Each structure stands twice: as structure tokens, then as C-alpha cells.
């Protein structure tokens, strides 16, 4: 399985994400935001957390219009896999690959703590390593993680089983406790919590590791 991790000015979880994929057995290539093409044969694009372009204008807005994101949108359009975490999730909503948007946290404060997540669906390459309904603990670290979308869009996400994770104790005001959503073809996942920061014992927990293990296993045969 070959993963490309995008690197923007201000990304700060790119190497953590690369390590999580490498430890799960993936081959990882870091790709700079000014590149116009992804490496040949990439199975999955990882869009990391951080503060791309200093969060100027809106979180993720400028990154979403960078040359490499045009290539990423093309990759997704061809049925490729994309995983966006934290700022990566914000970027994916800004590109339109995922519905909704991430607003300032309802409590206005930056929230940085481990949170309990409910695995809302195991029906995706990202969540197949979990049991549906299982509770896992993964950290969040964001100021703008308050997921919003039209009620009709939220209804559709729920009806199509596209909510991947929900918060057990909502830390940011997200609509319907949504922590992560899948695209229509279930191959693009955006989530605010950081599974890559809970992927080996030294992190204090390994609940995130199953995501990377399942992706590497599934996409090796893709």
C-alpha cells in the first residue's frame, strides 16, 4: 500500500501521520503542496493536521486551492482513497470532497484532550478494524472543529451510514455529535480527532492503530 502525505506550510502532523502508516506497513511518500501531481501508483492521500497557510482567510481554504489539492481531488474522483485529519478534514470540506464545514468551537476555546469516540459505522476501509458501536479514545486538538451542515445534509449522512465517528462527550458543539464523515463512495474520510496520535504504546494508547492497519491490509489488495 502506497500512501502520499501532503505537506503544506504550517502542517505539523504530517510526520506523525507518515509514521503511523509506516508502522502499519505502508510505503509513504511526502508530497509538497506546490507539486502538481501525486506519485504514480498512490493508493491513499493523507491530508494532515496543522495550520496550513496559518489558517488565513478560513481554516483549510487556501490549501484547498493549492496545486497538490487539485491532484488530490482528481485522485478522489478516480475512486482513490483520501484520509483528512483535523486541518485535513477542514481542507476536504473546503474542496467540496466532503459536505459541511468546520466552524469555531462552540465554547470558543482551543480544545486539546483525549476524547471518547463512538465508531458509528464499521462499513469502510477506514473503520473496518473496529466494531460498530465500539468506543475508542483518541485526542482532539483544534479551535475550529464545530461541524455544521444543513439539516437535510445531516439527515442524508445518517441515512446513508456516512457518519464514521461521533463524540461521546461533544467537545466543540458539532451537529449531532459528528466527529468524522465519509464521502458517498466511502473512500474519503474526514475527521477532527487524531488517530495518528494514539497509534503506539508510547502515545499512551493504541486505539488509533486499527485504522492504519485496516487501510494497509485492505488497500494492499486493491
Amino acid at each position, binding site marked *: 500500500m502506497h500512501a502520499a502525505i501532503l505537506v503544506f506550510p504550517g502542517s505539523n502532523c504530517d510526520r506523525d501521520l507518515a509514521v503511523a502508516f509506516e508502522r502499519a506497513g505502508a510505503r509513504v511518500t511526502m508530497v509538497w503542496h506546490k507539486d502538481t501531481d501525486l506519485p504514480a501508483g498512490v493508493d491513499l492521500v493523507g491530508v494532515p493536521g496543522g495550520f496550513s497557510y496559518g489558517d488565513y482567510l478560513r481554516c483549510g481554504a*487556501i490549501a484547498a*486551492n493549492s496545486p497538490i489539492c487539485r491532484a488530490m481531488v482528481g485522485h478522489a474522483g478516480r475512486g482513490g482513497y483520501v484520509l483528512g485529519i483535523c486541518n485535513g478534514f477542514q481542507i476536504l470540506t473546503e474542496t467540496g470532497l466532503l459536505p459541511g*464545514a468546520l*466552524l469555531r468551537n462552540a*465554547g*470558543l476555546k482551543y480544545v486539546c484532550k483525549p476524547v471518547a469516540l463512538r465508531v458509528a459505522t464499521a462499513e469502510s476501509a477506514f473503520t473496518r478494524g473496529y466494531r460498530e458501536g465500539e468506543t475508542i479514545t483518541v485526542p482532539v486538538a483544534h479551535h475550529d472543529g464545530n461541524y*455544521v451542515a444543513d439539516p437535510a445534509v445531516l439527515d442524508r449522512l445518517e441515512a446513508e451510514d456516512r457518519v464514521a465517528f461521533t463524540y461521546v462527550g461533544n467537545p466543540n458543539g458539532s451537529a449531532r455529535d459528528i466527529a468524522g464523515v465519509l464521502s458517498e463512495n466511502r473512500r474519503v474520510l474526514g475527521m477532527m480527532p487524531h488517530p495518528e496520535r494514539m497509534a503506539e504504546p508510547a502515545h499512551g494508547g493504541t486505539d488509533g492503530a486499527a485504522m492504519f492497519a485496516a487501510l494497509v491490509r485492505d488497500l494492499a489488495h486493491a
Partner: protein
Amino acid sequence: MKARVHVMLKTGVLDPQGEAVRHALGQMGFDGVRSVRQGKVIELDLEETDEETARETVTRMCERLLANTVIESYTVELV
């Protein structure tokens, strides 16, 4: 030609920052503020001299970058 773009959260989208400002105003003794909505103003200095073309171009800028139309509305003013 200069353009001024106002970007606001759409009606119905909760604005936690505006709400915090409203709360602070109340605590300072400014009673009677029913609600506060916070947005942004973006000023552009354009080479374009034709009003209609400028308006159309800035509108495209808004749709593609300056506003996120999922949550924000915008107005374009030429000055």
C-alpha cells in the same frame, strides 16, 4: 478600481464569536443588544476598469475562495 467584499455567516448558522461579543457588551452595561454577527471585510485593488467585469470577477473570487458558501454569504461593493 477597488472592490470591497463583505463576508458574513449565513442566517441560521450559529455565530459563537458574535454571541461572545454580545455577552461581553451586556456585561459592560450596553443593554438592548439583541444579537451580534461577526463577519469580515476584504478590500481588493483591481487593475480592471470596467465595473461589470470587475463585479463578475470578484463574484467568482467569492464563490471559489473568499467565501465558503456552505456557511457564508457575501456581498460585492465597488468603490
